[in-house]
C-alpha cells in the first residue's frame, strides 16, 4: 500500500502479467546495437506515480501557461520580434540557436499554433516542489506507452481502478485528433513516419490507429499545386490537410533544408507556406526549446501573459549576464554546466566531477565565451519506488507531461514517468535500459 494524505492507494502488483500483455500487444521501441536494428520491449513498472488532484491542478495551470507563452514566443520570433526589441531576450540567444530556421521567417502556421504537442519534462524536488527540466516542442514522443499500459492494467487489475479514483487517461487520442482537426486545412489527417525501423514506430502506428489518421511514408506523398497529396493504389490521390510528422525539421523538405534527406517530401515547405497544410508540430520550434532559451521562459510568461510563472525552472544562471557570471565562477564546483550548442545529453558537466585544474580551465572558457553556457543548481529530486525482483527500491524518475494546443490548450491528465534502472544514474532514457511507469492523476 502506498500512503497518501488521508488515504491509502491500492497498487497494481501483477507486473508480470501486464508485461506479458504489453508483449502481446507489441509495445516495443527500436534500438540500434552494433549497427543492427533490434526491437526491445519497454519495461513497465507496476507502481504508478501518483499525483493528487489538488497538486495536479496547479501543475496543469502552470503547463498551460508555459505552452501558451512558448507558442506566443515562437510566433513573435518569426514575425515582429518584439521580445527582442524590448530587451527581454538578447538576440544572440535566438539566432545562434540551431533550432532557429530563417526559412520560417514570416510564415504563419494555421491558427498561429507552433507547438501543438508540447512534451514538458518535470521533476519533483525533495521539497515537494515541481521543477521544469526542459521543454520539447519539436517531436516529443512517449504518450503511447502510458496510454496502452493503462488499457492493459485496467484489464489485468480492475479492482485497483474501482478502489482508487484515477482519471482515465485514454482520451489522449481524442485530444490529439481534436488538435489535428482544428488545424486541418482540408483533407485527411496523416502521421508521417520514417518507417518501421524508427525507434518510435510502435507509437506512430498506434496513434494512427487510435486517431483514424493515415500512417504514411514519404514515398507515397507528393506536393502538387502547393498541396500535399497521398497516392492511392487505384491511381487516385487523397489530399492531406494536417500532417503529424515524426521526422525532424532538417529532413522534412530536401528542396528547402538538407538536400541529402531521403525521408522528406520535396516542396512541402511551399505547401506549408501557402497555408495548404498544417504541419504538427510546426517548423522552427527548436528555437524555443533550446537550452539557452529555457532561462527566459519565466520572463516570457510575464512578457506575453502578464502573469507570474506558476512552475519554477531549475535555478539557472547565464554567464552572459555579469552578475550571474560572478556567481557561476564562484560556485562552479556545485553547479551543472551545459553547453547550449550541444544536444542530447552531450556537453553537460557536473562541476563536482572536475579537478581544481580543470575547474580553472573551465572558468577561463566561460569568461571567453559566456554566451555558450548555462549553469544550473543540481536539483535534489525525489526518488520513486520501483519493483525489482519482487523488492521495492528507490530510483530517479522524471515526468514528461503532454500539453496539446488546439482550439484551447489542454494538459493530458497522465504523462510518461521514466525511471533509471541504475541506482546511481540520473539518465532515464529508454534506449539506455530505463523503464516506464503509468502516471495516475487522482480524481478526488
Amino acid at each position, binding site marked *: 500500500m502506498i500512503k497518501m494524505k488521508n488515504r491509502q492507494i491500492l497498487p497494481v502488483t501483477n507486473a508480470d502479467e501486464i508485461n506479458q500483455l504489453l508483449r502481446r500487444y507489441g509495445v516495443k521501441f527500436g534500438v540500434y546495437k552494433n549497427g543492427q536494428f533490434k526491437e526491445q520491449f519497454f519495461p513497465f513498472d507496476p507502481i504508478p506515480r501518483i499525483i493528487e488532484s489538488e497538486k495536479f491542478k496547479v501543475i496543469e495551470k502552470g503547463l498551460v501557461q508555459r505552452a501558451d507563452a512558448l507558442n506566443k514566443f515562437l510566433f513573435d520570433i518569426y514575425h515582429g520580434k518584439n521580445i527582442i526589441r524590448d530587451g527581454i531576450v538578447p538576440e544572440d540567444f535566438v539566432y545562434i540557436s540551431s533550432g532557429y530556421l*530563417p526559412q520560417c521567417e514570416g510564415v504563419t502556421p494555421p491558427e498561429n499554433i507552433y507547438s501543438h504537442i508540447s512534451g514538458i519534462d518535470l521533476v519533483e524536488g525533495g521539497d515537494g516542489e515541481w521543477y521544469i527540466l526542459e521543454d520539447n516542442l519539436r517531436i516529443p514522443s512517449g504518450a503511447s506507452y502510458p496510454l496502452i499500459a493503462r488499457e492493459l492494467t485496467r484489464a489485468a487489475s480492475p479492482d485497483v481502478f474501482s478502489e482508487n479514483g484515477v482519471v482515465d487517461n485514454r482520451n489522449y487520442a481524442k485530444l490529439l485528433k481534436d488538435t489535428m482537426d482544428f488545424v486541418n486545412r482540408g483533407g485527411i489527417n496523416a502521421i508521417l513516419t520514417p518507417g518501421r525501423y524508427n525507434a518510435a514506430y510502435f507509437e506512430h502506428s498506434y496513434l494512427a490507429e487510435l486517431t483514424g489518421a493515415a500512417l504514411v511514408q514519404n514515398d507515397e506523398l507528393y*506536393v502538387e499545386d502547393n498541396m500535399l497529396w497521398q497516392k492511392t493504389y487505384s491511381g487516385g490521390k487523397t489530399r492531406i490537410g494536417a500532417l503529424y510528422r515524426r521526422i525532424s525539421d532538417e529532413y522534412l523538405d530536401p528542396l528547402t533544408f538538407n538536400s541529402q534527406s531521403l525521408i522528406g517530401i*520535396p516542396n512541402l515547405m511551399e505547401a506549408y507556406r501557402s497555408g495548404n497544410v498544417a504541419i504538427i508540430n510546426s517548423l522552427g520550434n527548436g528555437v524555443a526549446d533550446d537550452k539557452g532559451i529555457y532561462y527566459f521562459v519565466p520572463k516570457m510568461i510575464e512578457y506575453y501573459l502578464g502573469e507570474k510563472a506558476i512552475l519554477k525552472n531549475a535555478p539557472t544562471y547565464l554567464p552572459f549576464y555579469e552578475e550571474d557570471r560572478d556567481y557561476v565562477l564562484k560556485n562552479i564546483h556545485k553547479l551543472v554546466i551545459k553547453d547550449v550548442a550541444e544536444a542530447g545529453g552531450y556537453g553537460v558537466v557536473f562541476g563536482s566531477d572536475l579537478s581544481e585544474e580543470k575547474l580553472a580551465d573551465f572558468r577561463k572558457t566561460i569568461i571567453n565565451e559566456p554566451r555558450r553556457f548555462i549553469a544550473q543548481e543540481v536539483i535534489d529530486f525525489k526518488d520513486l519506488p520501483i519493483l525489482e525482483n519482487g523488492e521495492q527500491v528507490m530510483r530517479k524518475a522524471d515526468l514528461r507531461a503532454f500539453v496539446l494546443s488546439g482550439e484551447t490548450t489542454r494538459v493530458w491528465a497522465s504523462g510518461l514517468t521514466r525511471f533509471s534502472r541504475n541506482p546511481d544514474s540520473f539518465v532515464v532514457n529508454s534506449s539506455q535500459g530505463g523503464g516506464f511507469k503509468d502516471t495516475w492523476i487522482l480524481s478526488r
Partner: protein
Amino acid sequence: MKLLNFSFSTKLTFDNYVHNHSFALRCMPIESEVQHIVNCEMSISPFVPTKITIDAFGNTVTAGYISKEHRFLDFEINGCAEIDLSKSKTDYMPCYLYQSEYTKPDKELTDFYADVSAKCNAKDPFERAVFFSDILSDIIQYEKGVTDTKTTADLAFELKKGVCQDFSHIMLSLLRMDRIPCRYIAGLAACDGETHSWIEVWDGEKWLGFDPANNCPVNEDYLVLSQGRDFGDCSIDRGVMFGAYTKQLQLITSSLTTAY
C-alpha cells in the same frame, strides 16, 4: 536609372528517364526598391503547371511536379528590369549577421580575419568590406573547375582558388566575424556569361552591393535573381527525382544587355 533586358535559360538533360520529379526554381528576378521588373516571362518544358510563392528571404519560388517519365527539364526567363541605385533596399533579416552553413570559418580563416581586421582602420561597414576585398583579391586566384557548388568558405580559402561563389562566401565569413550583416546574391551581371554571385553589405540602414570576384562595388549592370545567407538559400534550381539515371548535364546561357 538603367533599363536592362535579361534572358536566362537552363537545359537539364538526364541520361535516362526520370519521373516523380519535384523542383523549386529561384530564377525569377526579385522585385525590390532598386530593381523593378517591368516584365518577365517564364517558360518550362515539358509543360507542367507551377505555383509561385515568395520565400522568407524574398525570393520568387516557382514550384512544380512532373510525375510522368521525361528526360529533360528546360526553363527560360526573358524580360526587362529597371535598376535604380539612387534608391535603397532595406529588407533586413537578423540571420544575416550570423555564420551559416557555407561561411563557418575554420582556424585558418579565423586567424586570417584577426590579422586583416587589426590592419583595418575604417569604421564604416562598406569601407571595411572594400578593405577586406582588396586583400582577398591579392591572395585568392579566380580559377574555374577547382571548386564546386558544395565548396565552403574555409575550403576555398585553403585552396586559395575559386570562382565568384567562393569569393562571396569568404567575404561573407570575414564580414560576419566582423559583426557586419551581409548576404549572398545570385544573379546576372553584364560581365559574366553565366550566373554570377556577389554580396550585399548592411551599412546600418540599407544594403550596398559589392562584387568580391571583381573587387568592385556593384553598379546598375547587375540583376538580382535570388538572395539569402549563402548559396544554399539561393540555388537557382533544386530538384528531387526518381529514375535509373546516372548523370545529368546542365547547360546555362544568359545575357544581360542595356535596353534603349
